[in-house]
C-alpha cells in the first residue's frame, strides 16, 4: 500500500506504524467521563467492512500522525490528512 503523505508525497506503508480507528482522537473528557465511557474508548471498536478512517504514525519518516481513509475490503486509500488538522477541526487542540 502507498500512503500519499500530505507533506512528503507517496510513501510505502511499511514506513508507518498502525494504531487503529481514528475515533481514538475523541478521547473522553477525564472531568466528566464514566467508567463505561473509558471501557468503550479503550476496548470497543466499530470494525467496519468497507471505509474506515484510521490513525497511522510515520515512524520511519517525519514522525507525523496521519488520518488515512482506507477501504478494509480492497485496501484502497481514498484520502490522507494530517491528524493534527483533523483534531484541531474537532476542537481537540487549543
Amino acid at each position, binding site marked *: 500500500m502507498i500512503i500519499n503523505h500530505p507533506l512528503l508525497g507517496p510513501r510505502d506503508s511499511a514506513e508507518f506504524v498502525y*494504531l*487503529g480507528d481514528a475515533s481514538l482522537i475523541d478521547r473522553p473528557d477525564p472531568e466528566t467521563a464514566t467508567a463505561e465511557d473509558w*471501557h468503550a474508548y*479503550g476496548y470497543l471498536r466499530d*470494525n*467496519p*467492512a468497507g471505509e474506515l478512517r484510521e490513525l497511522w504514525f510515520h515512524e520511519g519518516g517525519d514522525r507525523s500522525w496521519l488520518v488515512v481513509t482506507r477501504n*478494509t475490503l*480492497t485496501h484502497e486509500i481514498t484520502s490522507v490528512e494530517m491528524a493534527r488538522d483533523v483534531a484541531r477541526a474537532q476542537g481537540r487542540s487549543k
Partner: protein
Amino acid sequence: MRYSGFNVIKQALTGHKGWKPAWRDPEPKPSYDIIIIGGGGHGLATAHYLAKVYGERNVAVIEKGWIGGGNVGRNTTIIRSNYLLDGNEPFYEFSLKLWEGLEQDLNYNAMVSQRGIMNLIHSDAQRDAFIRRGNAMMLNGADAEYLDLAAIKREYPFLNFDDARFPIKGGLAQRRGGTVRHDAVAWGFARSADSHGVDIIQNCEVTGFRIENGKCLGVETSRGFIGAKKVGCAVAGSSGRLMAKADMRLPIESHVLQAFVSEGLKPVLPGVITFGAGHFYVSQSDKGGLVFGGDIDGYNSYAQRGNLPVVEDVCEGGMAIMPMIGRARLLRMWGGIMDMSMDGSPIIDRTHIEGLYFNGGWCYGGFKATPASGYAYAHLLARDTPHETATAYRFDRFRTGHMIDEKGMGNQPNLH
C-alpha cells in the same frame, strides 16, 4: 455409514458405488432449539458436541457459503497447548486431549499427527521465560521438555545454529503437539453432527437478528426467517460484521494473516518449529510442502490477501533459522481474516441480549482450539454456564481488568 477398513475393501470390490454423501442438504425448518451461525471448524464442532455430548437434537448450523470455507480451510494446521496463563492453558490442554481422541470420536480420519512442536530459544532471558512457560504447562497437566543444543542438533541438524545475531541456544518442545489435516476437521465434525440429526444449511446468509424486548427470537436469512430459542455466533473474522447487526460493538478488530506453502519436497522437517527471535513457524505437510507463516499484516482488513512487506518479513524469519528454505520455491500464499481481540485471547460468552451467544476473538490461534471451543460453546449453549476450562473467556474481563494477555501488549490488537 460407518467408515472402516472392512467398508473400504467392500467398496473397492463393488466399484465404489455404495458411498453416500457425508452429510445431508436439508431445507431449513421454521424453528430450532439452537442455531449456530457459521459452518466453520468451531461452529461444526459446537454442533457435534451439542448433539453427541449434551443431547440437543433440534440444532441447525447456518453457513453463508460452503462449510469449511473460512479460516478452518486457510490456516497452518498446527495444534499445541504451550500457553502460560491460567485462563488459557487448561483450555488448550483440554483441546489437545480432545484432538488425541478426535478421530475415534468422529469415525473420521483427520490425520492428527503428533509430530511435536519446538520453540527455539535465542538468549538467556528467553530460556528463563520458556522454562517458566514449560513449568506452567506441566502444572496444568500438559507435557513440556527443555531441549539443549545437542538435542536440537540431533533432531534438526539443518538449522542455522551459529547465526551471528540470533544463535540458537536451546528449545522448548511439546511432543504431543503437531499438525492436523484442517479440511478433514470441518468435514469430520459436519458428518458427525449430521449423523446426530443436526441440520447443516449451506448457502444461507444471516442478514439480521430478530430481537424483541431484549430477547433474540431467531435470525433473518437469505432463505427467510428461522426461529430459535438460542442463537450462537461462531464466525471468526466476520464477528464484527455479524454482531453489528445486533447493534453490538466488540473488543475486536479484523486483521489479515498470510500463510505460505512451498513446492512439494522430500521429507526434510520432522516436526513443527518456531523462531524465537522473530515471528516464523514452519511444518511440512504430508504432501511435502513446507507450510509457514508469521505476523499479521497489522492493519484492519477484510480482504483475504495481504501485502508484500509482511511476505518479506516472514521469509527473512525463515532464512534466519533455516537457510535451506531459500532453495524452495513458493507454490502459493493466501490471507485469512482474524478477529484480533484486545488482549489476544478469545471470548466464549453470553451477550447482553437474552438467547444470543458469542464465540470469537480467536486471533490467529483458533485452529488448535477447535474441539475445545466447540465443546465449551456447546456447554454454554446447553447449560447456560461456562465450561470449567473456559470460565475466563468473558466479555466483561475488559471492564473488570481480568485480561488474559499472553504477550503483555495491552489493548492493541495488531500487537498480539
